[in-house]
């Protein structure tokens, strides 16, 4: 039997499985750093990570990272450079997978990390894009991680910081000149939502152990499509948990 684990550990495990071997991964802060480390230690041992601060790595940093610019992330780096050079690789289509954190995501995979409410008089000012919009537009495919709450998974975001499939109509990204294919998954504390081939509206693909379809639907801000093949998300393996806890020993990111 597997050990007990936190919702964040579940998310990291699922996120790590999105990384294919030999992928060049644009690694965002927090959980994605752990997901990259877990993947490198298991099924993606020839993957490389690109960090917007201006770093490329193969091995995950040997030590806890509070930010991607922490000294352990520089030791053993394959390239320490300017952000614009990392962005150049992504603009050329060299980045296979990106991770973006979000405050709000909608049924079409659009992310809002800028303004809740009217941008001229916001009820909440969020930090902004950072590299999020760049990843959403330029990486080949991307994934977002989010706490599964009705106020976060909304019908339509009020402000699109990082575009997913826009208004959800077929070909929206191509029509608007976006380079990458768009989001492939929304990984939450309760479930994994995916998108149909070619994009469009998110649907429920798997539900995490201990949670129900009804619970997921009740905590989603739009009438969620359910896959007719909806299954249970496979729990984190012991190896995955071991790796997560090696890179986040005090549970800074994944603790309860």
């Amino acid at each position: 039997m597997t050990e007990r684990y936190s919702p964040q550990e579940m998310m990291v495990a699922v996120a790590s499985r999105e990384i294919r071997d030999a992928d060049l991964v644009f690694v965002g802060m927090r959980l994605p750093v752990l997901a990259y480390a877990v993947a490198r230690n298991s099924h993606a041992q020839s993957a490389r990570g690109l960090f917007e601060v201006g770093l490329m790595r193969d091995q995950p940093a040997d030590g806890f990272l509070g930010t991607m610019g922490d000294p352990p992330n520089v030791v053993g780096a394959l390239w320490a450079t300017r952000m614009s050079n990392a962005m150049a690789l992504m603009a050329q289509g060299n980045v296979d997978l990106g991770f973006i954190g979000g405050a709000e995501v909608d049924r079409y995979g659009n992310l809002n990390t800028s303004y809740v409410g009217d941008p001229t008089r916001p009820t909440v000012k969020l930090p902004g894009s950072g590299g999020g919009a760049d990843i959403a537009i330029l990486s080949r495919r991307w994934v977002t991680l989010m706490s599964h709450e009705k106020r976060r998974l909304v019908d339509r975001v009020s402000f699109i910081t990082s575009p997913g499939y826009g208004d959800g109509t077929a070909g929206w990204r191509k029509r608007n000149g976006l380079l990458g294919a768009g989001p492939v998954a929304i990984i939450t504390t309760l479930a994994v939502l995916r998108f149909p081939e070619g994009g469009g509206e998110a649907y429920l693909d798997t539900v995490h152990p201990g949670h129900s379809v009804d619970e997921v639907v009740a905590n989603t801000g739009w009438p969620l499509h359910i896959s007719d093949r909806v299954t249970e998300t496979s729990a984190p393996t012991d190896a995955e948990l071991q790796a997560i806890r090696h890179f986040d020993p005090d549970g800074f990111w994944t603790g309860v």
Partner: protein
Amino acid sequence: MSMAQAIERFVPDGATVALGVALEPLIPFAAGHEIIRQRRRELNLVGPISDSLFDQLIGAGCVGRVTAAWIGNVSEGLGHCYRRACEQQVPRALEVRDHSNFSISLALWAAAWNVPSLPTRTLLGSDILRTNPDLSPVDDLVHVSAVRPDIAIVHVQRADEFGRAHAWGPLGIAEEAGLAAAGVIVSCEELVEADVTLSDPNRILYAETKVVAVVHEPGGAHPSPVQGFLKRDHAFYRDYAERSRSADGFAEWLREWVLDVPDRATYLKRIDVEALRIKNHRPSAPADYGDD
């Protein structure tokens, strides 16, 4: 030159100031705190992601506009002073020019090359295009208008008195920020002889003709990390995040760590610098510049 003198001379009210251009490392907090002590007003802050420093300057009322991609606390989340300014105009209203990390870099390259704008494919489909007048979609490209800082302030590992700065580790947008700026203030951990900096001209970050001041300010980047010198002080960021949740809490934090502190040396006495000091050494393999 002291930091107080450098800020006094080169950061007037209303200036466009680039700070934190290496992203999470090498953030010139000492310079930012001196700007607060000197009560500068109406500054236009330029940067990519800002890990708490912009939040502090905004909370202190120094800022009229921010031109940036992300303002918050990287390990803790939201920037509470930034929220209060945008949501409640406390302590004052703030103009926001949203960018992405890539677009703010391009805005600085445009200024460095002295062109009105540079084109890019990023930001297509983003509502940032609707709120920032410096970003104009044209066909399948976005034209990013040049942003020229009056001054860029960078913290580096070492520099000489003539302004030749050596920095290592990830460099973010530090190079284009200095090249685009009318002038650069260099703050350094170590003030070294010219024979050290000139022994490796490829590591010199800026043409010395751009550098207007060199300030020897050890620990000037705390709580941000400095490769080879100091680790990131995660607990300090967490404490700032908690105390800045309320305007009163921030005011108290500001008094304790900035207003009632005369200079960086005094500030450092209140911190366990030894616990943060990097003690292992990983010297780079030398490059041989022999010529004859």
